[in-house]
């Protein structure tokens, strides 16, 4: 685009009816009218379908380009669906026709049937979308009909169902006779619609153009003698019109050029009345010749842009249906909006440029621009005066013309022909270039160097966007009702002291830009219907937003993203000191990319979630080169596990009942349960561990039991409640009764308790709920500590008994140490130091008698304050509780109490002992790992189902259900998949199904991995089946060892598997 056409573009911008917002852009003369075409090119890869989403929203129509050889690809489907969802009108370009000729060597007849095929496929897709839509609407209407008999939905469905039979079909489907299909070869520079040839042949043969328009595509043939067009070509073995009149001509041209038949070429050229430059004519490369001839004969730009001008709607033609669709989020219906909001619909439809019209702008994405590229920071060839002059001139010219044409005729082209400067849209859309028109440079403002500056990519739907205009920025979650509730009706210009409304901001439009490819040009104002860039919004807009001069405007519905982010990686700076840059860079990236998610996990990892591997690569490059400007390393994210225990299995690994056959005693393969437990700890057959503190003063008996699954679930769900219970108890401890238990909370607690009681039934769990002492880890986790000793009275339900005897208070203080021990034990299990889940520890006995004896002598001495100093929970090993302090006092300030003997303070010993007891209690039970699971929703077509299943089963996934989507041939598969296996899953499934299946992963639950990580074959059958070393992979052990290795824990793995097979280092022989 050259500069001198810019002025004209400014003029053109003012005439809304002659704007076409589609995807790609230039201004075009068509017939006697001039059009401004905003053309947004979007990348074709599935990973970037988010770019398509953002572009589609601000367009009125779109060109869908289909490869003539490859036909309909998955991405074509996706794009069609998006266009459909956004309610914009598509036109079709079938490109690369030349490949049919040159590469595939089709005859014209074959090419015709091939093209017909493609067209049918696309129409079938459209039809599917259409029918599924109708079915959905019908279902919706059925549910809603009672509630809302004359709602919008009803009308719509009425339209649709009539459309099924007659009128609407014609709009929906692509057909050359409709003029919404163009055949092109961009590389050779030609393209045509039926209309072009219809015009030519109506002169040549003398058949009416209208008739030709209808018959050039389809099963018609021409009877040259009778000059009549007849139906049913195939039956009579005749060539259809399309082949005879169009394709054969093109084929013969290609034939002539490729065979270098000079005479024939000349003949064709002269018969077409073209002038080919001597240079091109002599050129040895046939491609150049073809290009030269065809681009004159059938210029592609004419063909495509003519179609655009004719078939695609202008901003004025926006349908009421689309407006409502844009404004109504989710289940909200248009009628439910306040009248102020409903009034805006008229503004939308009118798309007026008067000053009174409300300004409505939609920002579909934010993109980062190097600050250097901003016009204010760029050297300019033209001074301001010059530009002002030019503008003045243009205005005069325009005014003259307007006067001449009575101010109503369309603009005459000022410079004819040469005005078309667009490059036709190539077959491989690349990057996202936007172009618009007009410019007025502005004085340089602030702006730091080397900074990324964010520009909002937006479109004016109504009103005129002016620089400096104050405007409301409405986030996607904003609700106009909320605002109207807070602000009295009929307020005038919004003052700064406006009440805070969530998701709303108020700011001025700082800079307006014209987007021309990579270039940005200043604009003073932008009339409605245009695409523009807005600077200075980065603080107000995250990814997308609606800007409006009235706060009653609802935010537009969120963008439809075909791809949801699923590929997760952990990102870290190469140099640890560069962490702040990384965080900053990631924030910028988050703003710049509509389809990226960034999380900081509890482990401190920065996780980047992207739509696919290609998208990921681009995000990382952006991060490295633009946003963070540091070296980063990318790794698989850390996968969490949980440890638990189960009931002893009834059958062994080969499904034989355990206990039936005797174990094969092999010396070096004994299960070493006993050897893990050091001496001095008694283990009874039931898994009860009895352990004594190092100073032999206290003895604890602990047993571990698996909790039923439902209980674990209840605990997980209620962790917040448990936490608030804990806070309550600790504040009660302090004697602060100010935090009175809220009635609701109390109810919830009882409900929670009831639920637990309901699920913990049976002999083993009798009364256990009342004896719950604590939850863990962190006092709110899914594990329970139960105290079964007789004098226990301190359960979580009752809180500490206020008037407890001294004895009890003493117990309580020591109890805190035991609880702390439990907390520590549940925080890191014995298998791989991961938290526990679903385990119940039962403290069967605690014998502190010896300790009591020792302490009894000074009990009398202890004052009342003992009660006051009781504490809620101490977790530290080094911490000495009130008791030992008392002893300290007894030994009169000497510093060391007798209990802080060589083993450290007594409370610390108790904590350590309790922790050990819990660990051993776990180890004598069958331990299991729990893996985090994703639920995975996969949409796939029937023909790739098999491959989807293969990928799932390879990654230990499990299919839960599979059903067909109504009205389509898509299947919806629901599966679960371990998080540990999900790395690269999305990519693999896409590759294997050539993009026809796209999974969505959401974390769902924890699941026990059935295999025992410590399992070795013990019975004869198992030996037969697995061999001595159990070489077949044990999933649980694999996971466990991976975690242990990562954490630097001891892994039971041989450094060298075979001693003999090491590299021989000795030199002599």
């Amino acid at each position, binding site marked *: 685009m050259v500069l001198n056409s810019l002025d004209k573009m400014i003029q053109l911008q003012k005439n809304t009816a002659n704007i076409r917002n589609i995807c790609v852009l230039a201004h075009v003369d068509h017939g006697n009218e001039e059009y401004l075409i905003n053309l947004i090119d979007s990348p074709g890869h599935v990973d970037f379908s988010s770019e398509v989403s953002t572009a589609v929203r601000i367009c009125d129509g779109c060109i869908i380009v289909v490869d003539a050889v490859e036909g309909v690809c998955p991405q074509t489907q996706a794009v069609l669906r998006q266009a459909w969802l956004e309610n914009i009108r598509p036109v079709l370009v079938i490109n690369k026709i030349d490949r049919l000729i040159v590469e595939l060597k089709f005859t014209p007849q074959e090419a015709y049937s091939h093209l017909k095929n493609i067209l049918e496929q696309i129409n079938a897709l459209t039809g599917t979308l259409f029918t599924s839509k109708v079915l959905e609407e019908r279902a919706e209407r059925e549910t809603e009909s009672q509630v809302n008999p004359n709602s919008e939905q009803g009308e719509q469905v009425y339209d649709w169902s009539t459309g099924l039979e007659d009128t609407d079909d014609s709009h929906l489907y692509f057909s050359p006779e409709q003029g919404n299909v163009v055949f092109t070869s961009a590389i050779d520079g030609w393209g045509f619609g039926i209309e072009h040839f219809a015009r030519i042949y109506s002169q040549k043969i003398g058949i009416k153009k209208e008739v030709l328009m209808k018959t050039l595509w389809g099963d018609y043939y021409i009877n040259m003698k009778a000059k009549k067009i007849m139906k049913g070509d195939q039956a009579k073995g005749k060539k259809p019109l399309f082949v005879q009149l169009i394709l054969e001509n093109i084929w013969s041209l290609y034939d002539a050029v490729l065979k270098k038949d000079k005479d024939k070429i000349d003949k064709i050229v002269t018969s077409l009345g073209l002038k080919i430059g001597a240079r091109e004519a002599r050129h040895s490369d046939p491609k150049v010749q073809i290009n030269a001839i065809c681009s004159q004969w059938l210029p592609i730009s004419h063909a495509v842009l003519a179609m655009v001008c004719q078939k695609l709607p202008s901003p004025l033609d926006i349908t009421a249906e689309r407006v409502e669709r844009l404004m109504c989020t989710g289940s909200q219906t248009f009628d439910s909006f306040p009248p102020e909001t409903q009034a805006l619909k008229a503004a939308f439809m009118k798309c007026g440029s008067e000053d009174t019209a409300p300004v409505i702008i939609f920002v579909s994405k934010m993109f980062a621009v190097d600050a250097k590229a901003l016009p204010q920071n760029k050297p300019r060839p033209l001074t301001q005066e010059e530009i002002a002059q030019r503008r003045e001139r243009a205005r005069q010219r325009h005014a003259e013309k307007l006067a001449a044409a009575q101010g109503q005729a369309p603009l005459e082209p000022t410079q004819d022909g040469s005005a078309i400067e667009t490059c036709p849209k190539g077959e491989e859309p690349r990057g996202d270039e936007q172009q618009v028109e007009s410019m007025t440079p502005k004085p340089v403002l602030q702006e730091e160097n080397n900074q990324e500056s964010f520009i909002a990519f937006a479109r004016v739907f109504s009103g005129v966007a002016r620089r400096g205009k104050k405007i409301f920025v409405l986030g996607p979650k904003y609700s106009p009702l909320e605002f109207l509730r807070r602000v009295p009706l009929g307020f005038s210009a919004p003052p700064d002291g406006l009440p805070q409304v969530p998701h709303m901001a108020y700011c001025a439009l700082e800079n307006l830009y014209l987007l021309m490819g990579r270039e940005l040009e200043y604009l003073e104002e932008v009339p409605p219907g245009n695409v523009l860039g807005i600077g200075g919004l980065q603080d107000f807009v995250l990814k997308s937003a609606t800007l409006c001069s009235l706060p009653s405007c609802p935010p537009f519905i969120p963008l439809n993203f075909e791809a949801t982010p699923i590929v997760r990686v952990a990102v*870290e*700076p*190469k140099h*640890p*000191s560069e*962490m*702040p840059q990384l*965080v900053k860079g*990631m*924030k910028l990236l*988050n703003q710049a990319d509509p389809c990226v*998610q*960034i*999380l*900081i*996990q*509890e*482990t*401190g*990892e920065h996780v980047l979630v992207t739509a696919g591997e290609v998208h990921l690569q681009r995000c990382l490059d952006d991060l490295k080169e633009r946003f963070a400007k540091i070296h980063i390393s990318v*790794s698989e994210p*850390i996968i969490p596990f949980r440890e638990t225990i189960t009931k002893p299995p009834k059958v062994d690994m080969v499904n034989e009942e355990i206990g039936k056959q005797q174990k094969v005693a092999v*010396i*070096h393969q004994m299960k*070493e349960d006993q*050897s893990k437990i050091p001496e001095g700890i008694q283990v009874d057959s039931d898994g009860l561990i009895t352990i004594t503190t190092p100073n032999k003063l206290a003895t604890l008996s602990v047993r571990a039991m698996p909790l039923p699954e439902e209980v674990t679930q209840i605990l997980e769900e209620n962790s917040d409640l448990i936490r608030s219970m804990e806070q309550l108890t600790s504040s009660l401890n302090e004697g602060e009764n100010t935090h009175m238990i809220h009635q609701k909370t109390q109810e919830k607690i009882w409900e929670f308790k009831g639920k637990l009681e309901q699920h913990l039934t049976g002999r083993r769990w009798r009364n256990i709920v009342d004896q719950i002492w604590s939850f863990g880890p962190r006092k709110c986790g899914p594990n329970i500590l139960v105290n079964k000793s007789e004098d226990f009275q301190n359960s979580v339900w009752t809180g500490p008994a206020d008037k407890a005897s001294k004895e009890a208070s003493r117990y309580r203080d020591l109890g805190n140490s035991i609880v702390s021990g439990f907390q520590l034990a549940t925080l890191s299990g014995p298998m791989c130091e991961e938290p526990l889940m679903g385990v119940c520890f039962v403290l069967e006995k605690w014998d502190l008698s010896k300790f009591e004896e020792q302490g009894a002598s000074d009990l009398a001495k202890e004052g009342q*304050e003992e009660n*006051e*100093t009781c504490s*809620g929970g101490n*977790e*530290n090993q*080094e*911490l*000495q*509780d*009130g008791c030992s*302090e*008392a002893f*300290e*006092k007894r030994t009169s*300030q000497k510093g060391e109490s007798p209990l802080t003997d060589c083993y450290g303070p007594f409370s610390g010993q108790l904590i350590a002992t309790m922790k050990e007891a819990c660990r051993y209690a776990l180890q004598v039970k069958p331990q299991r790992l729990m893996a985090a699971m994703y639920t995975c929703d996969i949409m796939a077509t029937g023909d790739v189902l098999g491959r989807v299943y293969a990928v799932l089963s390879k990654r230990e996934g499990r299919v839960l259900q599979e059903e067909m989507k109504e009205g389509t041939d898509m299947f919806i598969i629901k599966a679960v998949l371990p998080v540990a296996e999900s790395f690269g899953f999305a990519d693999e499934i896409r590759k294997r199904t050539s993009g026809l299946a796209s999974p969505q992963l959401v974390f769902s639950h924890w699941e026990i991995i059935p295999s025992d990580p410590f399992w070795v074959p013990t019975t004869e059958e198992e030996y037969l089946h697995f061999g001595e070393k159990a070489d077949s992979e044990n999933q649980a052990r694999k996971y466990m060892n991976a975690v242990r*290795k*990562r*954490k*630097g*824990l001891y892994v*039971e793995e*041989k*450094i*060298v598997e*075979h*001693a*003999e097979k*090491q590299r*021989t*280092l*000795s030199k*002599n*022989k």
Partner: protein
Amino acid sequence: MSIFTPTNQIRLTNVAVVRMKRAGKRFEIACYKNKVVGWRSGVEKDLDEVLQTHSVFVNVSKGQVAKKEDLISAFGTDDQTEICKQILTKGEVQVSDKERHTQLEQMFRDIATIVADKCVNPETKRPYTVILIERAMKDIHYSVKTNKSTKQQALEVIKQLKEKMKIERAHMRLRFILPVNEGKKLKEKLKPLIKVCLIDPGCFREIDELIKKETKGKGSLEVLNLKDVEEGDEKFE
């Protein structure tokens, strides 16, 4: 014409010698490299994978086999396998390259895990990942000492890392419970006297002792949280 003569020499390669002195005599056995530690930890259970030969030597490199009388006088038996097992478990070992390597690596990881567990980024109050800590440790050229405990070394590492990057021990959240009259006295020493405060875990003992001393055992400390870190995932919005 050469005649095939069997040698009575068996040459051993890849030998790791385990020695033991008993009854004033030195006994050696010939083992495979990188296997002895595995045997001791119980991972390797096949004796033949560890021993090159079941015979007990006086000097492995010279191939001098121990005399029967010496064995009986030292071990009370002449069962070579039994004696080999004894020497394997109690004798002094040459640690082979791979064994040393894995040990160092393991300790290195362990230290990094401890550091990552105990520290946070003071700006975000979020922990660093183990991988990052490992890289930082490599950057400061930290070398692992096998004779020190990993916990001790982790504390050293934290000190050294502080100079390089923003890292800090995760603070403990404490609550002081003090009798009213003592509170004032302590105020100067523990200012500001806040009910709930954050401290560096390193000075916990000091504070604990101070409180006990000053209040004569009446006041107490309560640890509310061992690690004051941000919990849960955060999403950028």
